[in-house]
């Protein structure tokens, strides 16, 4: 049977296409600011959001979205106002999020297989409602990055210089944190809360090994993210594996391959 004959695979690929491009596009700017691990911290807060959704009997994706964006903006606020160092702010949210999630899940009596699909991703659980939400938020997020591209690059290249020249660095950082929260929420159905951060980081550092400019790094990382999602979903379909793990392992493989190609290219150039 063809992989696209089933409705759930068509939904998974459509959702994955958006996730595969959005995650590296947002992740690029996080990696440049040495905030590669923020996705992990937000993911744990999203877990608390999912648990709250179960407890309240409403859409876990919607509650995870609210929790992710709130968590991301809180991390940025703590960091920017020097209330806590970057790693301390992450740790604070990381542990509070996972603890709140565990407490809420046990209160809701929802420690079951459906919860694990949020943690590690599942190709069976994407609904048409999920797809609409992912497409709207994903396309909106990519559009916002395109609009703010030059300003985000300015902050990535030289944050103090941008601040001195009057670029609203604080606002841009909050927007970027909010985008990271949205990315986590829309990606968790496919990749899983515990692995989505990898899809924001691995394609970016792989692309950096072979790209020749900022712009090419972003486009290449989006292409690698898309390829990782498609290959990972295909493998998980035929081998009956959790898609999140398959997607991230493909992304990790792309890093190894890109490092090899990059070394070859530099060897030829010198």
């Amino acid at each position, binding site marked *: 049977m063809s992989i696209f004959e089933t409705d759930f695979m068509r939904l998974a690929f459509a959702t994955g296409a958006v996730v595969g491009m959005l995650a590296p596009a947002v992740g690029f700017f996080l990696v440049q600011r040495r905030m590669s691990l923020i996705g992990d911290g937000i993911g744990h807060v999203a877990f608390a959001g999912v648990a709250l959704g179960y407890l309240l009997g409403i859409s876990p994706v919607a509650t995870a979205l609210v929790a992710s964006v709130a968590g991301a903006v809180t991390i940025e606020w703590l960091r920017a106002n020097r209330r806590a160092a970057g790693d301390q702010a992450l740790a604070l949210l990381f542990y509070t999020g996972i603890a709140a999630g565990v407490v809420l899940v046990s209160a809701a009596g929802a420690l079951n297989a459906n919860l694990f699909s949020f943690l590690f991703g599942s190709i069976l659980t994407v609904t048409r409602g999920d797809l609409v939400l992912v497409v709207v938020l994903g396309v909106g997020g990519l559009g916002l990055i395109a609009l703010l591209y030059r300003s985000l690059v300015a902050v990535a290249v030289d944050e103090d210089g*941008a601040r001195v020249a009057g670029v609203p660095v604080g606002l841009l950082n909050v927007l970027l944190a909010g985008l990271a929260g949205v990315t986590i929420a829309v990606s968790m159905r496919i990749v899983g809360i515990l692995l989505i951060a990898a899809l924001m980081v691995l394609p970016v550092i792989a692309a950096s090994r072979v790209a*020749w400019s*900022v712009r090419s790094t972003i486009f290449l990382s989006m292409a690698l993210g898309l390829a990782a999602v498609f290959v990972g979903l295909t493998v998980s379909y035929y081998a009956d594996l959790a898609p999140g793990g398959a997607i991230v392992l493909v992304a990790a493989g792309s890093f190894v391959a890109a490092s090899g190609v990059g070394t070859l290219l530099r060897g030829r150039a010198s």
Partner: protein
Amino acid sequence: MPIAVEFEGVSFSYPGSRPVLRDVELQVEQGEFVAIAGPNGGGKTTLLRLALGLERPTSGKVLLYGEHADRVHRRSGIAYLPQRAQLVIDAPVTVREVAAVGRVPRRGVLGGLRAGDRAAIDEAIARVGLSAHADSVVARLSGGQQQRAFIAKALAAEPDLLVLDEPTAGVDADAQEALAALLERLHRDLAVTILFVSHEFGAVERFVERLVLVRGGIVFDGDPSKLPAAWHDPSHVHL
């Protein structure tokens, strides 16, 4: 000449620490080329960050073009080059992309580049002598070329005030000579106010009109040729 930067009785200390600067009085006129020197830890970078509004004084006030430095409205004409170590990103950024960053304050947060911006970027790259390397990755250039790429970013902003923090650190004598000649041309041709912060000046020393020596406060302010002989002793200046 209008005053570009003004310190009035400024003291500064970080929370829970001893004062870094005490009772600083300083005026820099538009169009001056000023070197700010002093030992490491003497407070010169703090002085610069106060001047740019990146820090607020514990007491006294700092004015930039007549407004409180941390609340200046007309910021797009201020270009700041932090220490080179702070200017590294992981992605392979080209000289042209770095220079284009300089146009963002002029164009606004949402703006794309227009023909005028591209012309300003090309001119800035040409002025620092990197036209042949415009599409090269900055990290693969020499230290001196990397430094000039970031100066191109500053120039693309068409600044009135150019502030450089330790720009000669880690570059060889030839690159320092090229930087000195470049800054001298900018100062002469474009009447840019330049604040040059370093604990060593090398070739730039002969071009500056005024030297400000910072060691917890201002201990010398005047013509570099009038600097007391004792201050030329590196062991004295470098703590």
